[in-house]
Structures are given as C-alpha cells and as structure tokens.
C-alpha cells in the first residue's frame, strides 16, 4: 500500500472522494444505503415448496448463486436452500414480517439489515480492478448480469452479484470488515482512478 491511504485510519471507511490520477475515474464505487436485508433459509425439505410459494407471490427464488431482482426485491442465492433478500424503502422488521407472511412455516428468517455494507462498483475498469482480489472468473462468458458469488476478497468474506451488464457489481461485506474491503478496493482501483461516494467525509 502506498501513501494513497496513509492518512485513512484502518478502522474507518475510506472517505468519499477521488483517488488516483487527476481527472481519471475508470472505476466508480458508492455505498448503497437504505436497504433492508434478511437471510431466508428453507426449513428441512422445504426448499422446493418455499421457492414455489414465493415465486407465486412474485418473489423469485432460484436455488443457485444467482441474483434476481423485481421492482421491490432482490434475491441472492448464497447456499443451497438459502437466500439473501434485499428490499428498498423498508425496515428490517417490516421485511421480516412481509417474508414471514409469504413463507409461513417453510422458512426461517434472520434480520441482517445492520450486518453489512453494500458497495456498488462500476466503470470501464471495474473488471480489471476486481481481478486484483476476486478469484472468480468475471469474464462475460463466465459471469454475467444476474450471476452471484459468495467468496473471499483480500481476506474479507463477501457476497457479490453483477447487477447489470455495464458491468455493475454489488458487494455485500460484513460491517466490521468494510474498512479493510474499501482499502483494498481503493488501492486496487487507484491506477485507473476511482471516484468513491457515500462513505462519509472521514
């Protein structure tokens, strides 16, 4: 790590701003705020029933590492019979109540709205930046819009998904690991220039 982040405490999010060569922003990253997040886990033997019920109710569940978005929700497969459900404009409690009413006894729910930081990474050099830590093939022929992965980046566990073909990626990182993740992201993107927003002024 160069002097780039020397002034940023390791316990704080890298402050918003531009890092790298003057006037270049090959990568744009922003913290996505205001999402409620829940873990939805199928009860034993109920994954198929659960997926059917929720799909019928307009909440598409695919039992695979895929991210599917509707107007209000995004569902991301993180393991067999297990999903993260993201909702905009809703509290965690409300999301749990809503999902509980849909899933009934077929699933258990856990609020994770405060557990993570969500960062969107986009821009022409996003893929080249992510290659510096993501040991998953992100080539369009291998990973496209709607694909998701739970993996580790620079010693930090993440779940990420490609939200559009631009490409844009969204990373979900545990709250206490977010400073380390943003340090890695900023340092890795610096050669292309990165404009970081939504992380406060430090």
């Amino acid at each position, binding site marked *: 790590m160069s002097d780039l982040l020397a002034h940023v405490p390791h316990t704080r999010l890298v402050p918003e701003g531009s890092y790298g060569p003057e006037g270049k922003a090959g990568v744009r990253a922003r913290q996505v705020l205001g999402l409620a997040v829940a873990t939805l886990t199928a009860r*034993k033997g109920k994954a198929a029933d659960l997926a059917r019920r929720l799909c019928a109710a307009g909440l598409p569940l695919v039992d695979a590492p895929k991210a599917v978005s509707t107007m209000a929700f995004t569902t991301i497969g993180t393991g*067999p019979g297990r999903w993260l459900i993201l909702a905009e404009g809703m509290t965690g409690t409300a999301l749990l109540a809503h999902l509980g009413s849909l899933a009934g006894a077929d699933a258990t729910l856990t609020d994770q709205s405060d557990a993570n930081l969500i960062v969107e990474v986009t821009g022409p050099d996003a893929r080249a930046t992510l290659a510096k830590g993501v*040991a998953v093939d992100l080539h369009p022929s291998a990973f496209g819009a709607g694909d998701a992965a739970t993996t580790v980046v620079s010693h930090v566990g993440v779940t990420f998904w490609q939200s559009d073909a631009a490409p844009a990626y969204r990373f979900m990182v545990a709250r206490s690991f977010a400073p380390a993740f943003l340090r890695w992201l900023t340092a890795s993107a610096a050669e292309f220039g990165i404009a970081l927003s939504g992380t406060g002024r430090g």
Partner: protein
Amino acid sequence: MRIPCPYCGSRDAHEFAYLGDATLTRPDPAASDAAEAFHAYAYLRENPEGAHREYWYHANGCRRWLVVTRNTRTHEILGVAFARPSTDEVPA
C-alpha cells in the same frame, strides 16, 4: 488449487477448510464397545495413496460440507458432492 463446489462452481482452495477422512461414521455411543470405537473415530486414520474421500467445508462460500474425492498423490480432484444427501434442491 481449485475445488469445483457443486453449488458455487470452481473456487480457490483457500475458501475451504479441510477436515479429513469422510469414510468414517460417528459410532453408536450406546454400544458396548463405544470407548474403543470413539477412540478409533477420533484418532485413527488411514493414509491412503490415491483416491481419498475427505470432508471439506466451503467456509467462504456456500457453507456446505462437501465430500471431495482427491488423489493424494497428484491432488487431482476426482469428485465433489454435498456431504448431506440433498433432498432440498429446487427443481430447475
């Protein structure tokens, strides 16, 4: 080294935690020879050359325990399956 996780796809081996021999079964604790059986279960291991079935945990992925069949000479991965017989799959 890469391990093809049945859920996540090909992943770096660093994402997985190794446990060991997957051919062992936890003995019946009520059996009359339970003490000997548990001793063997906890401590005694074969060290086979060639194909070996072993438990790996996809700690930084889908959190599934896997049975990975690995050639202990070449590290070639010969097969990977969920440790828990999966009755939970969603039909495609």
